[in-house]
Structure formats: C-alpha cells, structure tokens
C-alpha cells in the first residue's frame, strides 16, 4: 500500500461527488491508501493565478504544506487543473529559495506548517498507469469491459505544458489507452482526444467554447465509442452537462455517456451504483452498461 495525501479539489467535493466516492472505493484495490486533507481549500485554478497571482502561490503552498505534514511524499490529485496548478506552484517554490522563504514566512504568520519542498504532485491517472498501481489494476478489473469501445479524452492540463506535467508525450499520450485495455475494453483513437473541451471559457464565451466541446464528442461518436472517459472533473462537467446545449445549438443529440476514470475502472472491477453514482450524471450511462451485461 502506498500512503498518499489526497487532494479532492472543489469539483469532487461538491458537484462531482461521484468522482470522490468512486476514487475512495477504488484506491485500496490499486494499492493506494488515501490520507484526506481536511483543512485545505480550492487551488484557484487558472482564475486566482490570473486575478491574484501572489495569493494563488500562497494558497497552493498551503495545500502542499499540509500534504507534506501527512508524512507522504506524494500529493495525489483527481483533476487536471488542480494538477497543473499545484505542480506549477510546487516547481516555483522548489526552484527558488528566496521565494520559498518568503512564502514560508507568510504561512507561519497564519499558522500553516512550513513547506520544505519534498512533495511530488501526481494525478491518480499516473498512479495507475504504471508501476504497482498498473499491476494491481489488471487484477482488480476482473469483470472487464468486454465489447466496449471507449474513447479516451485527456483534456489539456494533464498534457500541456509538458515542461510542468511531463508524464508522457503530450502529442501521443498512451496512459488512458493502457488503462482501458488493461480493463478489457477497446480504446478508440480520434484527433480531438488531446484538445481542449472549452470549459475555462464556457461561461464567458459560450459560443467559442461549444465550438471546441463538440469536437471530441462528435469524433468519438463517429468512431463508434460507447462512452468517453476523462481524468478531469471539469472536462467531465462540460462534456456531460453541456451536451444539452450542443443539441440546442446544432440539433445533434449525441447522448454520449461520459465517465470519470475511477468510474470506468470501477465498472471493470464490478462496482455497483453505490460506488459509481451514475445517477448523478446528466447523460445516462445505461446504454453502455446494458451493452456490457449482454
């Protein structure tokens, strides 16, 4: 068992609770003991980075400090945006002693433990795409996904900028495909799997965002996918909830089920609704589940 500090982020804490529930249920099966961080807040996404950059840095330093205080060397995330935010802040602090010193002085003033820079921020995807997690995954996914065609959707901020993420080739990633195949499903390929879903501007520039959002859904549909799987709850939210807006705008009703990575593995591991919470999705996952049970 690897003990990791677990950072849920806002989405998995609130509107994407199903992500948290399925991740918690799955973790022991893939060798992860989650130490939940109780007192942390939102990482601020790109938004606080832009609105109050110094606050962004301190907010993330605080999360890193509490992660370090658990004694684990790993802070595990379940969201692309959290991953980039925390990794960026972490590299800034680790690579600049004077900055780390100043931030630590401020943290001390409000009663946060010192951050010594020993934590590595890693996404759940990376924990199960290689090493022990991957070996255990194959055993855990005993029920399989036979007959299912799954479209992997990476989203942006787990691939780019690769300088800060660097787990795999940002143009030809393969971690999701490896996991889909280890679970017994068939991974389909389509160009938009590495592109943006439009989420960051879906409220401020809806039309532009929908022009991005339609690409992965349409391409996955054309390639015969039964569902799309994503490692990011923000991608999940836009792909799942905004399909109704695509229908309104284009007349196309895709009805494409969107799964969190932990849910997809959960299905292959024989989990039930109590751990999967598909009822919380906007687009029904039933057609995919029906196909699997045949």
């Amino acid at each position, binding site marked *: 068992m690897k003990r990791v500090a677990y950072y849920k982020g806002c989405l998995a804490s609130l509107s994407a609770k199903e992500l948290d529930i399925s991740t918690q249920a799955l973790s022991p099966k893939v060798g992860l003991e989650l130490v939940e961080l109780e007192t942390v807040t939102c990482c601020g996404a790109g938004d606080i980075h832009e609105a109050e950059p110094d606050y962004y840095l301190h907010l993330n330093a605080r999360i890193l400090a509490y992660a370090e205080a658990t004694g684990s060397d790993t802070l595990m995330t379940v969201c692309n945006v959290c991953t980039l935010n925390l990794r960026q802040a972490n590299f800034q602090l680790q690579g600049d002693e004077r900055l780390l010193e100043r931030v630590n002085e401020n943290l001390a003033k409000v009663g946060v433990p010192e951050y010594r820079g020993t934590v590595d921020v890693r996404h759940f995807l990376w924990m199960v795409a290689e090493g022990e997690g991957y070996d255990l995954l194959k055993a855990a996914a005993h029920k399989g996904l036979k007959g299912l065609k799954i479209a992997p959707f990476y989203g*942006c901020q787990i691939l780019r900028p690769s300088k800060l993420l*660097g787990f795999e080739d940002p143009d030809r990633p393969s971690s999701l495909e490896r996991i889909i195949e280890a679970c017994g499903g068939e991974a389909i390929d389509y160009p938009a799997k590495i592109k943006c879903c439009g989420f960051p501007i879906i409220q401020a520039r809806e*039309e532009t965002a929908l022009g991005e959002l339609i690409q992965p859904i349409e391409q996955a549909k054309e390639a015969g996918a039964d569902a799309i799987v994503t490692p990011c709850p923000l991608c999940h939210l836009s792909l799942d909830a905004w399909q109704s807006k695509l229908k309104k705008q284009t007349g196309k009703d895709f009805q494409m089920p969107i799964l969190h990575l932990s849910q997809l593995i959960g299905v292959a591991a024989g989990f039930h609704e109590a751990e999967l919470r598909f009822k919380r999705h906007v687009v029904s996952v039933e057609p995919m589940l029906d196909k699997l049970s045949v």
Partner: protein
Amino acid sequence: MQVGLKIWRYDSTTGDRALKEYEVDAPEEATLLDCLDIVKDRLDGSLAYRKSCRMMICGSCGMRMDGGAVLACKVRMYDMASAGHAPVISAMGNLPIVKDLVVDMEPFWQKFKAMKPWLQPGYDQPPADEEHVISQERMNVIHKESLCINCGCCVSECNSMESDPEFLGPQALAKGMRFVGDPRDAAKTERLDQYSAEHGIWDCTRCYFCNERCPKGVDPRDAIAKLGAEAMKAGIDEDMGAKHAKWFVHSAKTTGWLRETELVPKTQGIVSSIKEMKFAMGLAVKGKVPPPFPPHVAEGVKESRALFELVKEQGVDGALGIVQGERALSRLEHEVGHAAGGGGDTGVGSRDQADVSPGEEPTRKRGGE
C-alpha cells in the same frame, strides 16, 4: 542517413491536394529544413516553403510536423530517421494556405498590428547626457515576451482561434504584454482596455498549445495571464472572464471552495442567468449544483482568508506576481516521458492522423451556423 518525409502538397488556385512521399540522403546533422532543401534541389523543384535565416531567428519556417507546429530549421531529423519514422509535413493551422507549406500570414500580421507594437507617445527623450534606466525587476516581467520571432507556431494549434478566428491569439497578446509591461510605454491603460474586449484576453481557453509549441520559450499563455492580472489590477474587470476570475478569489476567501451555483450569476449577471435557469435546474436535479444554503465551508478557510489579507498588503500583484518563480520554471527541462515507466512512444498515433490535411476550414466560423 536516409530520411523519409510525407509532405502535403496543396495549391489554393486549383484546390488540388495530395500527400506525397519523398526519401532523401541527408547528412546526420540535417534539420527538417535541410531535408526540404534537398527535396527541392534534387527531387521536386515545385515544392513551396518559406525560409531565410536557417538559425531560428527570422521566424519564416513554421510548419507542422505530425500535426504539431515546429520551426523546420530547429528540428533535427536523426532520431526520427533512425527509428524509421517518416513524419507528415503540412502547413501550419489557423491560417489560409497559399501553396504547399506556405501560409498566408496576413491575418497574423493584422492582429499583430492591432496591438500597436511600438512604444506609445510619452516616451520622452532623456535629458542630455543621461539615459533611461530600467530596473532588472521590471525587465524580468517582459523578458520571455521579448523573445518572440513572430513565427506563428503558437497560433497554429490555438484551440480558441480554431473556434473563433477573430481571437487575437497568443502571438499578438504576448506582444501586447511586451508593451504593457514596458515602463517606457504611456498607453498601458488604453492597451489593457483594448485587449480586454471581445476576442481578447478572456477568449483564451487555456489549452496551453501555444506554450507547448513556441520554439523560443515565450510561453504566450503566461503572457495572457499577466495581461489578465494587469487588467484586473487596473480595475478593468467588466468582462465576464474577469468576473469569473474574481469570483474564484471571493470563494476561496469566504467558503474555501468554489460554489458553482453562484458562479453563473456572478459571471454572466442576473438577467442572462435567469435565461440559464432551465439549464441550471437540469443540473441541480443531478446534484451538480449544490444548494446555496448552508454553504459548504472548508475547515481551513480562516487561514486562507488571513493569508489573503497578508499577501494583499505585500503588493506583489499584477504581472509581478506571475513572474515570481518564472526562472525556476524556465530551468525545468522538457523531460517528457521519463517519469512514465511504459510511456514514451507506445501511444496510438493520434497526432499522425490529426490535422494532416491542409486547407481545412476552422471548426466554426463566427456568425456561421
């Protein structure tokens, strides 16, 4: 060494297109540009591409290799040729193609010019025998932005521009930041106003393709974040994108977590959020929108609020805040795939298939269906 290339030939006057394969014998140190020169010299004189300096400074030779924009004179072919991989070479994206690998840069220059990329009046001559001294600290704010060679690689895969061709885009906005951050420029506020309008700063979807592709380390997305930070510092925050960002700060201070229920009205205003009601109700049924009361408050919110008050006093705001630690980031090497046990090249070649066909229309044109 033998180098294989698959080149998308295209002629906009006839509309003819074809993927042609070539193989050339090139020296081991040859770049993609050297190989194209050999093709043109020995195999097919009609091949069209741009070049000038051959040393990554003029910005002429931007093109796509396996779907991703590169400077042809920067890419060495040795590894690919040794692996027996013949890459697909095509024209850059988001710009109309003239012939083969040559794109029409006019839309790019239009956006560039719209940024007024020169120092605005107010740049007074220094008194006799004196000079303008700019502190290193101020220089650091625009160091990366001043490295741009206008090659267009960042624009090629800009996801927002694919969807909204009028988006100013990464190169123009990075150039804008280069002037907004220049202490000698007297038009900072006007610039921020202009860049904050429709098709400006808040159009960026943060896909980070620009940072990934830029051959000079400009990191245009970071420049856009600096512009956003400067605009908000200057109180230019009426755009929905800016309001969206402000609400994050507010939530982090008050409840610790972002509450999506409130994000819609705070971003779009009450009137349009009422129009959104039906959509929001659909989400609420699924528990996607947490009920407004009682707010879900993170335990550590007092600390994070105190932290906010504390750093606010220290005044490391605007672009200065973003530049902190930038050097530490620029020292990071691109060690892609090293962390991944089985990562690397095993992936299915989505990039090989993506975008290889030239002359595609953008996904959606503004005003179109």
